[in-house]
């Protein structure tokens, strides 16, 4: 499982590691203890806000210069889609999405069991200065949808979420409640929040509280 990219007998330049155990090991997403599946089973049928955790996905932080041709083309070849260079945009292809974070930073989200393969593929394809970091355990994604999702966002972040300013596909990192989130509008009334693991419980409480007046429906 240990991977060295340097030729044998040479010192490894970077440590790459398949961090996933076998299937018999229980994985606990950041909101595992909230038992959202059980909540979903006994939900009210209607509500203005729908919430689910898009859990245990693979998250890779990519750093590199847009001037590095090898980086840009290598990423496109391995991810199947070019890195978005327009600020605050995202791209999606199949089960892979890429969010712009800064001119030299992107977040790749993909199925959890592909993180290691994709990291290896990227490292094999790219030359020059770049970095790939697996951050899958450190964050999770909450998906908010429904007609009042936008109102909950307005209670939580100062981003302008009006469709004219925040069209589908836009991504923005901001303050969210008193924590932070990377917000993406994935469809007209669906929003994805990439949040940090350690803040997940606080934000879960916050979202329940801020949604109460509209009715909150948990989805599994």
């Amino acid at each position, binding site marked *: 499982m240990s991977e060295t990219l340097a030729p044998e007998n040479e010192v490894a330049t970077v440590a790459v590691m398949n961090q996933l155990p076998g299937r018999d090991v229980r994985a606990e997403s950041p909101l595992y203890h909230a038992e959202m599946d059980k909540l979903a089973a006994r939900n009210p049928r209607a509500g203005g806000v729908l919430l689910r955790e898009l859990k245990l996905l693979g998250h890779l932080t990519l750093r590199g210069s847009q001037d590095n041709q090898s980086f840009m083309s290598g990423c496109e070849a391995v991810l199947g889609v070019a890195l978005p260079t327009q*600020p*605050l945009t995202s791209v999606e292809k199949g089960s892979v999405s890429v969010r712009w*974070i*800064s*001119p030299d*930073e992107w977040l790749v989200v993909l199925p959890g069991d592909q993180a290691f393969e994709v990291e290896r593929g990227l490292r094999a394809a790219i030359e020059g200065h770049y970095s790939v970091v697996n951050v899958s355990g450190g964050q999770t994604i909450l998906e908010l949808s429904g007609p009042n999702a936008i109102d909950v966002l307005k209670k939580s972040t*100062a*981003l302008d979420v009006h469709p004219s300013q925040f069209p589908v596909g836009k991504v*923005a*990192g*901001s*303050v969210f409640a008193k924590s*932070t989130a990377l917000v993406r509008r994935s469809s007209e009334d669906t929003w994805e929040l990439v949040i940090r693991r350690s803040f997940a419980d606080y934000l879960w409480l916050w979202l329940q509280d801020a949604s109460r007046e509209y009715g909150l429906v948990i989805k599994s």
Partner: protein
Amino acid sequence: MFYIYCPHCREHREEEEFHAKGQAHIARPADPDNCTDEEWGNYVFFRKNPRGLHHELWYHSTGCRKFFNVTRDTVSYEIKEVYKIGEQPQVVAKG
């Protein structure tokens, strides 16, 4: 609460997304070991506090995590320009 244009994200964001880092354009001396105590003290401790135009360093901490510069009027709080690290201000105090 300021409304600050981030030159990397290319849109205005609320002040709470940023950290103010004080006076901009304070270059670390090239050869610290041969600085006098006075030179080093000036670099480490002394800062301007102008009434009027001030060039400041800001950090977009919850956004792109990039540092950039802001020229701000300390009386009216107007932000006159923002510019990236390595660039020079266009709006400067007269005299």
